[in-house]
């Protein structure tokens, strides 16, 4: 296999508060191969989003403090990049999709103006920006993109807003797409559509994807490799199939058990018993 597109080594991130310091990420090391789909799974506060934001140094410093570790993108160290290089990296090389499409779009601008902004930033050579916007809106499955691009965010449904966010991220033609809980704010049927869309776009444009989620249910069939985070540590990583079948860590097992199954005899949904995991 060729050199990984993204390498993270011994990443430690602290949040320095007035009275104490919280270790959000502890010694995280992982790699992402070109064209690969990696899922980072963990509950709220496990450090998965912090890790994702740290990839392009989007964390506010302070309170965040990247104490230790290396992040290499195509062999270049992100930690030593200057502001201009970081701006190139953000969006242009590593693009993000966030959890809340309704608030991630600026309410005072049209879809056209926002996607156009992204295109002009990273692809100044594009002559016909409007045509490019239409092309990407079409690619994410928006009906009648030429008319829809003049809409304001509040005129779109949640699913459509997320499609616009995806179009905006893809329009910069990034090498890595980081989807931070892209479906959490959407209802279940839309969730499936968005995941399917992400999967097909990934195939079509051959980028690497990092999917961040707390939901093991959407991981299988999407990601080829899984990384489980618990309390700031990567507790387990490996091929999706293997982790789903033979989880080694008690927390992974507990997470997988949390997926509700049709036909299950259980009366109540499973929750995670942290005391038991800590003891294991």
């Amino acid at each position, binding site marked *: 296999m060729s050199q990984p597109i993204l390498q993270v080594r011994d990443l430690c991130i602290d949040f320095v508060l007035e009275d104490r310091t919280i270790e959000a990420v502890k010694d995280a090391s992982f790699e992402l191969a070109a064209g690969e789909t990696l899922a980072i799974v963990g509950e709220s506060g496990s450090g998965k989003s912090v890790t994702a934001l740290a990839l*392009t140094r989007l964390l506010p410093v302070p309170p965040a403090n990247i104490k230790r570790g290396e992040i290499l993108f195509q062999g270049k160290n992100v930690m030593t990049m200057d502001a201009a290089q970081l701006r190139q990296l953000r969006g242009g090389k590593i693009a993000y999709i966030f959890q809340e499409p309704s*608030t991630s779009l*600026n309410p005072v601008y049209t879809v056209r103006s926002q996607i156009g902004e992204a295109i002009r930033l990273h692809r100044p050579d594009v002559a016909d920006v409007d045509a490019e916007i239409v092309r990407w809106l079409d690619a994410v499955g928006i009906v009648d993109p030429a008319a829809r691009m003049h809409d304001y965010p509040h005129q779109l449904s949640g699913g459509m807003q997320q499609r616009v966010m995806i179009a905006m991220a893809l329009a910069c033609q990034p090498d890595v797409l980081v989807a931070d809980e892209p479906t959490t704010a959407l209802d279940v049927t839309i969730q499936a559509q968005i995941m399917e869309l992400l999967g097909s776009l990934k195939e079509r444009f051959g980028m690497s994807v990092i999917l961040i989620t707390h939901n093991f249910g959407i991981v299988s069939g999407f990601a080829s490799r899984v990384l489980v985070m618990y309390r700031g540590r990567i507790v387990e990583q490996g091929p999706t199939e293997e982790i789903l079948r033979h989880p080694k860590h008690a927390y992974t097992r507990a997470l997988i058990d949390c997926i509700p199954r049709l036909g299950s005899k259980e009366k109540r949904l499973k929750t995670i018993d942290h005391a038991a995991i800590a003891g294991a």
Partner: protein
Amino acid sequence: MITTTPEPLEAAAAGPMARALRRFRADKIGLFAVAMVCLLGLISLTFFILDRLGIPWPMDPNATNLERKLMPPNSVNWLGTDNLGRDVFSRLLNGAYISLTVGFVAVFVSLFIGVTVGAIAGYFGKWVDNLIMRIVDAIMCFPTFFLILTAVALVGPSIFNIIVVIGLVSWTGTARLVRAEFLTLRESAYVQAARAIGQRGRKIIFRHILPNAAAPILVTAVLGVPSAILTEAGLSFLGFGVQPPQATWGNIIADGKTYILDAWWLILFPGLAILVTTLSFYLTGDALRQAVETRSERQ
């Protein structure tokens, strides 16, 4: 086959401006207040131009006529005359532009300072914010009116000085407001998203944050106008405003206060002019606030 066509009926007027306009149009009191503001603006402009052209209409505001002094409202002097026989109606119209000019320009000055300072404090945060806001607190400790009075007494009471002093003293409220808006908006998801597509800080401030803070800034601006007008009237009343013989609403009242028991019209009409003007601006600002209020619609 199912074809879905996007409904065009809303698409034409869906922007934040269009929405605010639509709501404003439904507000009867607001529309009336705006009409009043426009009328006042038109009056001041007309009589300012007439004055500059040297056309004394309806009468020369500064022509004295001691034979007709302290006349109650009559068919010649519609709003009566003062102790020097000057026509109150002419003086009121002639003084209108002073009030409005002071109101608008002073607000512009204070807005410029307030928005800049507030934006810097709110966006950069940390010690910058601390330093700036402590200075703002210090300025706010002084009673505004006396600060203005002292400053005007020092630099001299010309219309230009009055405008600058009012502007320089009254920006603190705007700065606080803008700072608070920036603090909130800085953490918003779309600012985060703008950072994530690699937008530069300057662009984020002007393109993503400022337009979203525009509504409350606009409302304070409009509400700042009547307070500047009142300040100017107060200064003129105390004799620190625009100097005689130039008529202003404040100094007409100041001249008339000696005759308050004999010549009620000297106090009443300029007082009403001030009241109607400030009320029109307050009501406009209020209507504007309701029209641009977007929070209830953001889910």
